[in-house]
Structures are given as C-alpha cells and as structure tokens.
C-alpha cells in the first residue's frame, strides 16, 4: 500500500504539464503560430479595436459592397522608428498614409487591410496602443479596417512592429486626377504649413530638444478632397507631400507633366519652431516629410473657390495658393525667393544630411 501511495505521489509530482503560458504580456513566436495564442491575440487585442461587420465574419477576406464607378487600390508599408513620436505613432501613420494615397486619387476610402509583422518580445501593451491609434484614425477617416494578417519574427529580425496597410476606395467622379492632367495656367494650392513631420521624427530619433515640442502634422485628408470634388472643382492633380517634401513632389509633377512649376517662397508657411530647427540643422523645410499636407492643381479661375472649400476643414484650414503652372522648354520647378531672386529646385540624391557647421 505504502508503495502504491508513493507511486501515486511520484506520479503527481511528475505531472509537469507542458501547457504553454498563454497570458504573457509580450509577443512570443507562438503568437504567430496560427494556434490558440494567435487566436487569443486577435480576439483580445485586434478585433475589438477594429470591430466592424466584415471583420466579424472571421474570414480571411472581406466582402465590400460597391454600387458603381471605378476603384482605387493602394498599399504601403510602415517601418518608422521610433514607433511613438509627438502627435502620432506608427498606427496613425499606417492608416493616414493609405487613406491619403486613396484620397489623392480622389477616391472615397471604403476598406483597409492591416498586416502586422511583430518582433518576438514586443510588449502586448505596445501593440494595443498602436492598434488603438489605428482604430481612432480609421474612425476619423470614416473607413473600416476589414481584414488583416499577423506574423511574428525572431527577436532581432524586426524593429518592434512593422505594419502594412492596403486600401480600396471608390472613385465617384469622371476626372482623371494625375500629373498628365495638369495644364498651363493651373493654380497650385498647398493645404497648410510644411516640414513638421520630418522635424518631429528627427527630434525624437536624435534626442534633439527644442523650446516647444514639434508635433507631426499626420492627419487623414479624404474629407477636404471629397469636399472639393463635391463642390464641383475641376481637380487636375492631387499629391500628398510625404518623403521628399513639397519640393520633390513638385519636381516629379513638373517632370511627368513636362511643364514649368513656379512657386513663391513667401506664400509657403513654415512654423517658426520648424524654421528654427531647420536653421540649426542645416535642413531645407521644402524637402522635409509631411503626413497631413497635400497640393492641389486646379484651373486658376476656380482657385479662390477651392481655397474656400479647403479652409472649411481643420486639416486644410491654412490652405494657400503658392504658385502657378506655365509652358516652358524645360520641365522644372523654380522658387521666387524671399529676397526677390529665382532659384531652381532640384531633387536631393538621398536623405538630407545635417551639415557640419
């Protein structure tokens, strides 16, 4: 009897059950394994944040209803470091970036996908923050995140979180919004001040401190674009000013439309603290990244009305007319400087580098 008891007790001790720990507060490789843990991660963190009808079906794809018209389709990947910065984070960027790419086609966004590549060891709380930002931004942009994917990579093989979003939008007008539609005589409108996102990211990344915190301008732009189209403005071209900034975008448009773009430095707003940071670092705000600014090419006769429509929306409340398009033997961008001279804007060969002195 005693032996049996001893056996039983040994048996109990040996019951060292290999059930995985499921309540960890950081991402493990098992979260990407397609099993229970992944299921739990999606059910607890992702789906409640994005909750909407197509997502509730738990299907790999979403079915979206479209009445008629053309579709716009875009994708973008987000690998920003640091993940969080003044005024936004990788989540806000991932939604605004894709919404804005659709908006620049003149499309109404109807659904986004979200693909996450998570690095092993990432705190779940970080993922929760990012997902909450994405949900909040999507709500502001009046679009749902309707499908997605999650993968986990070994520690050291990622940078916390990489996000890919793709988006579909409906084009409900008959305009061809593209550089090829730009015409001599078009007015160029800019939706607000430039350079804030670039400086905000650089300040956090490099540990630079200024008297005031410079926040990103990151914002979805679909509302003012749709308002322009609803107001019957004949929009020729739209571009959001992301990497490369205002200058690079204008150069691309000048080159693909084979026209001359002339802009006036004094009509381009740059916030004083952004200006100061640029002076210190030797950067040109015209080449700095933005995430909530865009340019609009419209017939000059409609410029004032377009500005009125833009100024009614907070994200484009500071819209101004910055220049005009004209015929020219050379497709280039010239800037009328503050001191009355003219210079040519050319593309930089890479990222701007802070100067020595």
């Amino acid at each position, binding site marked *: 009897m005693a032996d049996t008891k001893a056996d039983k007790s040994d048996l109990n001790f040996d019951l060292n059950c290999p059930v995985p720990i499921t309540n960890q507060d950081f991402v493990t490789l098992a979260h990407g394994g397609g099993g229970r843990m992944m299921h739990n991660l999606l059910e607890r963190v992702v789906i409640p944040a994005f909750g909407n009808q197509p997502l509730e079906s738990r299907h790999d794809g979403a079915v979206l209803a479209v009445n008629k018209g053309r579709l716009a389709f875009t994708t973008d990947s987000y690998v920003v470091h640091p993940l969080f910065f003044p005024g936004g984070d990788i989540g806000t960027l991932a939604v605004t970036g894709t919404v804005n790419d659709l908006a620049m086609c003149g499309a109404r966004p109807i659904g986004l996908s979200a693909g996450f590549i998570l690095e092993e060891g990432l705190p779940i709380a970080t993922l929760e923050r990012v997902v909450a930002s994405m949900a909040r931004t999507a709500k502001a942009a009046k679009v749902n995140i309707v499908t997605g994917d999650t993968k986990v990579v070994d520690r050291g093989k990622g940078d916390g979180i990489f996000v890919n979003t793709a988006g579909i939008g409906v084009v409900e007008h008959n305009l061809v919004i593209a550089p090829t539609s730009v015409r001599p005589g078009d007015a160029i409108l800019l939706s607000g001040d430039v350079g804030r996102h670039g400086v905000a990211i650089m300040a956090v990344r490099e540990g630079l401190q200024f008297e005031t915190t410079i926040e990103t301008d990151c914002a979805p732009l679909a509302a003012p674009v749709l308002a322009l189209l609803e107001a019957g403005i004949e929009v020729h071209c739209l571009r959001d000013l992301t990497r490369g900034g205002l200058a690079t975008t204008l150069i691309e448009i000048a080159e693909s439309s084979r026209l001359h773009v002339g802009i006036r430095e004094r009509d381009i707003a740059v916030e004083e603290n952004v200006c100061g940071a640029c*002076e210190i670092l030797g950067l040109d705000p015209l080449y700095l990244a933005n995430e909530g600014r865009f340019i609009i090419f419209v017939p000059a006769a409609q410029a004032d009305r377009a500005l009125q429509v833009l100024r009614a929306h907070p994200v484009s409340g500071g819209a101004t007319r910055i220049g005009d398009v004209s015929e020219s033997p*050379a497709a280039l961008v010239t800037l009328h*400087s*503050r*001191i*009355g001279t003219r210079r*040519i804007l050319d593309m930089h*060969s890479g990222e701007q580098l802070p*100067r020595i*002195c």
Partner: protein
Amino acid sequence: MKFVDEYRDQAKAESLAQAIARITTSPWSIMEVCGGQTHSIVKYGLDELLPKDITLLHGPGCPVCVTPLELIDKALQIAARPEVIFCSFGDMLRVPGSGGDLFSVKAKGADVRIVYSPLDALKIARDNPARQVVFFAVGFETTAPANAMAVFQAHAQKVPNFSVLVSHVLVPPAIEAILSAPDNRTQGFLAAGHVCTVMGYEEYFPLVQKFHVPIVVTGFEPVDILQGILMCVEQLEQGRAEVANQYSRSVVREGNRPAQALMAKVFRVVARKWRGVGEIPGSGYALRDEFAAFDAESRFGVAGYHVDEDSECIAGQVLRGVKKPQECPAFGKRCTPDRPLGATMVSSEGACAAYYQYRRHEQTTQAAAGKRS
C-alpha cells in the same frame, strides 16, 4: 523668425545690390571663403543681383570638400572594424573614399552613427565601455573648440575607449596659399564669419599687408553677404586693403579667448593635406603629445597610409577659385551628387554640388532657349 528674417529682407537686399552697382567701375573678383556662404549665394541667387563686373569665386571653406581622400579611406578602414562605433557629422557619410563611402561601410554592417556634437560621441563611449568609439574630427576653426573639448573631457574623465580621427584645417594659411599661387585671380576676400567668431580677425592683418587685398569678415545671410561684398568693393574701388568686420553681431577682434585657449591646449599646428590642393604648411591641427593616446590613427594603425587622388576631378582648382564648377568636363555628366568624383560635389556647401543643385537646369534651359532662337 527673429534674427533671421531681417537678414533675408527683399528691400534691404535690393538696396545693397543697387549700392554695389553704383560704386562698381571696374571688374573685381571676390572670393567667399566659407562653404556656408557659397551655399547662401547659390541658394538665394545673390550673384543675379550683382553687376556683371563683380565675379564671385568660391573658396576652400567647405570642411567636407577639403578633407583629403586618404583620411576618408582611413575613416572607412577604422569604421569597418567590428569593435568600433564610428561617429561623424552627417554630411561626411556620403563623401567618397577610394572604395565607397561611410554609408556603404554601414550597409555592410559597420556601426556608423550621425552625431550633432563630438560630446555626443563621448557620451556614446561612456555608455559603451566594451566598444571603441571614434569621432571623425573634421572642420575648420569653427568645429575645433568642441572637438578639443571632447578630447579634453575624455582625458579628464579617463574614457579610454574614445578617440578622434583628426582632420582639422585652418583658414589663414589657405588664404595665403591662394594668394601666393601664380594663377591667383582673387582680389578681395569675404572671410568666414563663424571661423572669426572663434578666432577673431587679428590673423588677417599680416595677410592684408603682405598681399594688399581687402578682407571683410562676413556673415551668412543674404543681407550679410551683400553688405560684405559692398564693403569689399568700396575698398577695391578706393585702392584700399584693410580688414573690416561686417559680422559684428557675432565677431569681435580678439575672438573667443577661452575657446582659443582650449584649442591651443589640445592641438598643435601641423602641415595638412587639402583634398584637391595638396599639402599646405602650418594649415591644420593634430593632437598634442599629451593627448596622443586619443589619436585614432595610431590606435588603429592607419597613420602611414597614403593614396593618390582622382586626376579627372578639378576640385582643387575650384577650391582655389581658378575654375568654376561647370568648367569641369565631368560636371553633371560623370560627376553628380549621386556619383561624386570629388568632395565638392558631395556636401550642400560644396561649390559643385551647390551649382548642380541650383543651376544645372538653368543651363539646360538656356541651352534649349539658345537652340530655339
């Protein structure tokens, strides 16, 4: 923005340009020494405002441009070592050495970091005691005080894993070399305002006497530069040759004495090679023996390395004001900021890069317009 906008004022710029035109009666060639001034001139198109008789020559004052090829190669060799964290100002990363640049070494796995101050590099050294932290100490008298301070602090705080790769150059010997050359075209100088903020301008009195050239200490904003040119042309027209100070809001005659004292404590004056120019006696700094332990060249055994420069690149003539960038057959063709042959095409302060960035299309336009007419 305060303290900037008033120096970028259209009315002031125009009235200075008119004043220059009024007093100019013969052709004059004036050299702005500093790359920051070159950048402003080309960026704002200041030469468009000047009468045809005034030619601006772009001087040797771009630290990125004059750092010799062999020093870039040394930097590449040191940066490639696995134990090294190589810290540099941003615009040195794209300067081509014989085989690639710091960016390409970084892409192959080297730990290369952009810092904004040598003191940041010193902090990285303190935070990473198991690694060797090397700072690329380039520049003129402007960056020398901070670099001297980093070495001084590393010595005082006993930070053994910190060292500097020194390539400091000095302005007055370069001016003397330019004026002594048989093909010299320069008749007056705009001296570099920030160098003089540190050094003052007493060093220029002997030069003015010996070569009978006006030297005007000048700032970097459009109004500063136009005023500097006006002060220089006034002297040239009147046959005077004096040291004058346009940049008095920053520069005093004796300069920044504590900074000079620190530089003298850490550095000694030596002959230095200038990229594209060659060796100029007494034109640079090296660490004093007391601080020799912080010399990266000897720590990593690269001191004896020598290399010859590309023969096609005319950067040396550009830096001495003998040729303009577009006079180079490679300009905009085999040599662009994407694939620079020489350093003057790299930094935005480099004359070739500045011309390329702001002028290239203008030449294309003029050529196209010429063909049409």
